[in-house]
């Protein structure tokens, strides 16, 4: 077998470090040893398919649940999943979760005293099409307090989980909204070292995506690590 062609490494400054002093949750969970660099082998350039049986039940509308309609500002989020060469990543799953419009998750351990919405579960999943496009509808999530420090509030955000084509391309991230005053104060958002990289986590309002008389539209592209042009060392 020919040596495998590996994936590009994390771009410097584009991803958070493990240790981020302003985010208290990192203090006891950050390894003291630097991670050991691994040349890419078959183990890293292959990766899981999202379980096929789960893809069968696409859930691209989060605004209806348990026989009713969710409260809040309806939004459409759409964009593409690309690699660093700008090539579309088709047929890849995106798992989605978020707080409701009041800033409360439908999760037993969320103790924020904001109302639950019986018609909003805050869970979805979509699969990109041939052009790497995805689209789903939800309500804009509310901000919520999180006790990281005095008067700490998470900015409005939606969580995403993506696999891409390999073990190396796995990504879990969060999408934020333009103009949110909490962004400047949020240790998680600001854990990303480069300002330009942080800004890539903010969706763009798009009047063309907005559906008249129905929902505001936002664009957000995901860019996963691309492939090297030559085989890995060894």
């Amino acid at each position: 077998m020919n040596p495998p062609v590996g994936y590009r490494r994390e771009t410097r400054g584009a991803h958070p470090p493990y240790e981020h002093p302003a985010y208290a949750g990192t203090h006891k969970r950050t390894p003291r040893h630097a991670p050991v660099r691994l040349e890419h082998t078959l183990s890293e350039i292959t990766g899981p398919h999202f379980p096929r049986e789960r893809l069968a039940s696409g859930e691209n509308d989060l605004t209806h649940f348990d026989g009713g309609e969710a409260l809040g500002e309806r939004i459409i989020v759409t964009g593409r999943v690309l690699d660093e060469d700008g090539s579309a990543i088709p047929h890849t799953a995106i798992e989605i979760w978020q707080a409701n419009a009041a800033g409360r998750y439908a999760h037993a351990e969320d103790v924020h005293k904001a109302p639950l919405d019986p018609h909003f579960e805050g869970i979805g999943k979509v699969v990109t099409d041939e052009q790497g496009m995805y689209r789903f509808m939800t309500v804009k999530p509310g901000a919520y307090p999180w006790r990281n420090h005095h008067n700490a509030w998470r900015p409005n955000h939606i969580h995403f989980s993506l696999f891409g084509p390999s073990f190396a391309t796995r990504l879990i991230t969060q999408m934020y909204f333009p103009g949110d005053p909490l962004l400047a104060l949020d240790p998680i958002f600001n854990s990303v070292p480069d300002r330009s990289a942080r800004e890539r986590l903010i969706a763009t309002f798009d009047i063309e995506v907005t559906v008249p008389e129905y929902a505001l539209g936002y664009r957000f592209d995901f860019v996963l690590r691309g492939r090297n042009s030559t085989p890995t060392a060894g």
Partner: protein
Amino acid sequence: MSPLQTPSQTVGPFFKPALVRSGDESLVTSRSRGERITIEGCLLDGDGAAVSDAMIELWQANADGRYDHPDDSQEKLLDPDFHGFGRAATDELGRFRFHTIKPGSVPGPGNLLQAPHINVSIFARGLLKRLITRIYFPGEQLNAADFVLNTVAPERRPTLVARNENGALRFDIVLQGVNETVFFDV
């Protein structure tokens, strides 16, 4: 201009209903080929406290050492009943458990066989990006020559090898401090 990588962010504390389903911790069906194994462990933080809000994912080759993926072009059989992906949330005591098969060997650099191993991703609140490690198997002859194990300082290698315990393979993951697990930059 080429597009730039989307930064990682923490999975946070509220992912379980969205990401983890009962049954995801079993990678096998009754028809999967290979030696059945159970992997059990505990995820611990720098104080030795249980990490009860984490997600652990496995990715592995089948019993013949073939990944169910188009970029694995080895002439080995695929197993229609084994796809190699599993997922589990840790419980209130930081415990996790997977049911799978022992993977076969896959090639490494220079077409030397790697020792059998399972690729592991760890996500949790407080982890701004995933941690990556590997599970190796006790008493495996190929361990001594494995290029990844040999990249790691000898005194830290044991953190990558599961041990036999009560009919299962025990693999604890320590995020920080004494006996800290070896993590990889992939």
